[in-house]
C-alpha cells in the first residue's frame, strides 16, 4: 500500500500536557486501513496507548479526538468526530461523538487523530493552526460556558473560522458525567469525556486549518454522493426530520407506549402534546440549524421566555419533561441551555433527578439523607437548584456529581435497583419493554446502556420482507418480539461502527438507511484510492466489535454485566400498546453470544 493515501489528513497530533510538548507523526495507512477512522480507530489507539490500570481522572488517561477519511468531503451528514478515553463515570471504554463544525475543521488542520496525555498544571487551551500548536494559559476562561469561550478565543486571535470544543464549569469541577461542547450546542455528552478534559486542565481545543481534503477519484465520489443525496432527499421521513429532528420521537414513542414517563414507571405521557417536538416547532422554533454539509437541517434554534439556544435533541427533551413528570416545555428548554452551558450529559442528570423523585415518593430516600433536598414529580425549582449544585459540586451536589449509580450505593438495595443504568451508564429515553432489539443493545453495548452502538431502528419500520431476507425471520421487524433481534443487533452494530468510522450521523446514515457496507466500500475506495470491499469492511468491523469487548474485559467487565435494570425484566407496563410486555433478555443474549462466537 502507498505510504500516503487520499481522504485522510495524513497526520496524528500527540500532545503531552504535563511537559507542554507536542509531536506530529505521519499516519500509517496500514495501521488505519482495518479500522477506517473515527470511533474504531480511536478504540484501537486507546488499546495500544492506555495502561488499563490508569486512573480515568489522572494524567495517564489517554484522550483521543478522531475523524475519518470522509470527514470534510462532499459526503453529506459526515461531520462527526469521536472523543475516546477511559470513562470516569463507568471505568470502562468511554466515547462520545458529536456533529457540528469541529470535526471538519480538525481535518482541515491535517489531523486524523489528536491524542492528549498528561495533565497541565493550570487551565489552558490548545490552539492548533497551520503554524503549529500553542499551549495558551486561560485563567480568565475558568467558569465560562462554551459559547462564551468560543467567542473569546475567536476574538483573541482575530479569526472567526476557528472552531472550538470546550468544557464548561462541570468539566472543570470533574463532574463524572461532564460533557464537552462544540459549535455552540453540539455535545459529546456521554461517558464523561468533559471530566477527562477537566482533569487534564484542558479548557478547550481550538482548531483552524487550511489543508484541503484531497480526493483520489473526485468524479467517482461525486457520482456516489449523488446517490446518497437522492436517498436522503427522497426519504419518506425527510420532511418530518427537517421540521422536528429527533424531537419527533416524543409523539412516535408515546404512540407505541414506550415514552419514559415518571422514571420508566409508565410508557404513556398524558400531556405529550404540551411537550412534543410539534409543540416546540410551532411555539418557539425560529429557524433550522445544521451540522456541516447536511441537507436535513434537523436541529432547531428557539427563543422562549427570554431564553434562546439550539436544540434540544429528543433525549434532553424527554429527559426533562415526561421522564421527570414535568409538563412545562419552557422549563425543558431552559434546562437544555443550562446543561449545555455547564457542559453536562442530560441523560446522567435526568436519571439522578428521576431516580431521586421515585425514591423519595417510595420512601427509599429521605430528604434528610440528601441535605434536606425534596424533589417531587415536575418540581422545576428543585431540579433547577439540584443542577446548579451538581455542576459546582456544592453541598449534596458534590456526591451527586459522582453519578446516580455511585450515589445510590449509600442506600438500600431496593433503591440501588431503581437506578436505570447498565455498566454504570444511565439509560437513554426509550423503554426497552416495547423495543426488544434496543433492550439487547443496552445490555451488551460496550460503553454501557446506550442505543448508538447498534441503533436497531429497523425493528420499528415494519419492513417484513427485508427482515426475512437480512435476518432470516420477519420477527426482526416486530418491535415486541425477541426472535431475530440478536441477528439484527449483530448486523446493526457493524453498520453503527461503519457510520461512526465514516463519521456520519446515525440519524441519517443508519435510521434513514442510506449507507450499507456495499455503498460505503464504494465511497471509501473513491475517496482514498485504497480498494475496499463490503466483505472486508464486514470483517474489519466484526473485529472492531471484538476489540471493544476485549478492552472492557481488561477493565473487569464480564458477561454478568450484560444485563438490564430489573424493572425491564420483571415489571410489565400497565397501559398502552406495550402493556404486559417485559424483556426476555436471556433468550436474546444466548443468540447474541452464539453469533459472536462463530
Amino acid at each position: 500500500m502507498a505510504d500516503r493515501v487520499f481522504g485522510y489528513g495524513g497526520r496524528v497530533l500527540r500532545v503531552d500536557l504535563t511537559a507542554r510538548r507536542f509531536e506530529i507523526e505521519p499516519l500509517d495507512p496500514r495501521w488505519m486501513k482495518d479500522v477506517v477512522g473515527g470511533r474504531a480507530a480511536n478504540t484501537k489507539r486507546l488499546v495500544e496507548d492506555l495502561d488499563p490500570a490508569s486512573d480515568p481522572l489522572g494524567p495517564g488517561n489517554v484522550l483521543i479526538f478522531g475523524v475519518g477519511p470522509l470527514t470534510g468531503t462532499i459526503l453529506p451528514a459526515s461531520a462527526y468526530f469521536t472523543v475516546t478515553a477511559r470513562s470516569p463515570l463507568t471505568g470502562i471504554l468511554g466515547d462520545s461523538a458529536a456533529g457540528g463544525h469541529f470535526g471538519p475543521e480538525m481535518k482541515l488542520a491535517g489531523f486524523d487523530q489528536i491524542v492528549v496525555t498528561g495533565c497541565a498544571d493550570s487551565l489552558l487551551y490548545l490552539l492548533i493552526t497551520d503554524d503549529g500548536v500553542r499551549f495558551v494559559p486561560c485563567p480568565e476562561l475558568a467558569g465560562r460556558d462554551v459559547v462564551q469561550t468560543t467567542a473569546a478565543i475567536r476574538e483573541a486571535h482575530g479569526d472567526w473560522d476557528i472552531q472550538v470544543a470546550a468544557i464548561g464549569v462541570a468539566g472543570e469541577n470533574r463532574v463524572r458525567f461532564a460533557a464537552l461542547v462544540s459549535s455552540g450546542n453540539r455535545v459529546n455528552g456521554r461517558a464523561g469525556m468533559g471530566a477527562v478534559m477537566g482533569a487534564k486542565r484542558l479548557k478547550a481545543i481550538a482548531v483552524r486549518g487550511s489543508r484541503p481534503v484531497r480526493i483520489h477519484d473526485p468524479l467517482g465520489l461525486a457520482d456516489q454522493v449523488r446517490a446518497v443525496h437522492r436517498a436522503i432527499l427522497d426519504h419518506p421521513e425527510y420532511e418530518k426530520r427537517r421540521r422536528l429532528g429527533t424531537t419527533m420521537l416524543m409523539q412516535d414513542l408515546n404512540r407505541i407506549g414506550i415514552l419514559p414517563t415518571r422514571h420508566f414507571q409508565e410508557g404513556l405521557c398524558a400531556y405529550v402534546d404540551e411537550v412534543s417536538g410539534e409543540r416546540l416547532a410551532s411555539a418557539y422554533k425560529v429557524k433550522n440549524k445544521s451540522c456541516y454539509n447536511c441537507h436535513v437541517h434537523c436541529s432547531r434554534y428557539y427563543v422562549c421566555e427570554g431564553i434562546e439556544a439550539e436544540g434540544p435533541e429528543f433525549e434532553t427533551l424527554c429527559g426533562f419533561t415526561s421522564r421527570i413528570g414535568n409538563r412545562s416545555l419552557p422549563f425543558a428548554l431552559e434546562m437544555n441551555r443550562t446543561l449545555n452551558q455547564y457542559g453536562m450529559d442530560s441523560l446522567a442528570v435526568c436519571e439522578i433527578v428521576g431516580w431521586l423523585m421515585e425514591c423519595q415518593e417510595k420512601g427509599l430516600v429521605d430528604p434528610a439523607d440528601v441535605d434536606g433536598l425534596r424533589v417531587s414529580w415536575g418540581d422545576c425549582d428543585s431540579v433547577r437548584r439540584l443542577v446548579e449544585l451538581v455542576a459546582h459540586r456544592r453541598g449534596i451536589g458534590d456526591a451527586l456529581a459522582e453519578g446516580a449509580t455511585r450515589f445510590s450505593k449509600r442506600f438500600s438495595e431496593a433503591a440501588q435497583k431503581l437506578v436505570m443504568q447498565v455498566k454504570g451508564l444511565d439509560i437513554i429515553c426509550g423503554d426497552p419493554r416495547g423495543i426488544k432489539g434496543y433492550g439487547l443493545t443496552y445490555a451488551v453495548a460496550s460503553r454501557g446502556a446506550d442505543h448508538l452502538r447498534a441503533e436497531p431502528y429497523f425493528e420499528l419500520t415494519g419492513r417484513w420482507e427485508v427482515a426475512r431476507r437480512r435476518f432470516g425471520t420477519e420477527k426482526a421487524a416486530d418491535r415486541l418480539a425477541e426472535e431475530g433481534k440478536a441477528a439484527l443487533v449483530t448486523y446493526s452494530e457493524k453498520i453503527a461502527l461503519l457510520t461512526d468510522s465514516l463519521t456520519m450521523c446515525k440519524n441519517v446514515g443508519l435510521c434513514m438507511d442510506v449507507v450499507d457496507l456495499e455503498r460505503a466500500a464504494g465511497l471509501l475506495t473513491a475517496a482514498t484510492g485504497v480498494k475496499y470491499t463490503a466483505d472486508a469492511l464486514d470483517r474489519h468491523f466484526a473485529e472492531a466489535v471484538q476489540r471493544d469487548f476485549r478492552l472492557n474485559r481488561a477493565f473487569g467487565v464480564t458477561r454478568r454485566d450484560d444485563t438490564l435494570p430489573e424493572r425491564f425484566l420483571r415489571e410489565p407496563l400497565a397501559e398502552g400498546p406495550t402493556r404486559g410486555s417485559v424483556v426476555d433478555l436471556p433468550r436474546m443474549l444466548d443468540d447474541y453470544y452464539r453469533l459472536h462466537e462463530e
Partner: protein
Amino acid sequence: MIRIDAARCTGCRCCEAACAFHHTGSGGRVLSRIRVVNLYEAGVDAPVVCQQCEERACLACPEDSLTIGPLGQVVVSPTLCSACGACARSCPIGAVEIVDGIPFVCDLCGGEPRCVTACTQEAIAFVPGAGGTTSLAPFAEGSARVSPSVKRARFARALGSAVRAGWGVSRG
C-alpha cells in the same frame, strides 16, 4: 449576483462544500469562494459571498489583473496577478481572499452557481443582472486593516441583527 437571506441559513455550509468541490475536486472551507460565518453566540449563520457591489473596491488592483465579466462577476487574470493582496484588503466584507497565491472570489460558476443548487434552504439565490445594486460603503471603514475572516464576521453580525429583530430579540 448571489442574494443572501441570512434568516433562512442554518449554517450547514453545503454551499461551501459544493463550491470547493466544483472548482477543485477537493473538500474544505478553505477552497470555497462563498464562506459561511456561524455566530454561535447570536444563533445567526450567514453566507458571505461577492455582492457585485456598487463600489467595486477590489478593482483597485496595482497590476490591473481584476476585471468585470459578462455576468458581473470578478475575473482574475492569473498572468497579471502578483498575489499582493490589495483586492482582499479592499473588499469590505471579506469576499476576496488569497488562497494558494491567487485571489479566490465568486465566479458564478459560469452562470450556474453550484452553491445555490446545493442550498436546500433557499438562503441564497442567483439573481442575474442584479450587479451594482448593493452598496457596501457602510462596511468600508477600517476594513483594510483587518483579515477577511474578521470582515466576514462583521458583515454576518450586521445581517444577523436584522434576523434577530425578526425573532423579536435584540441582543447580538
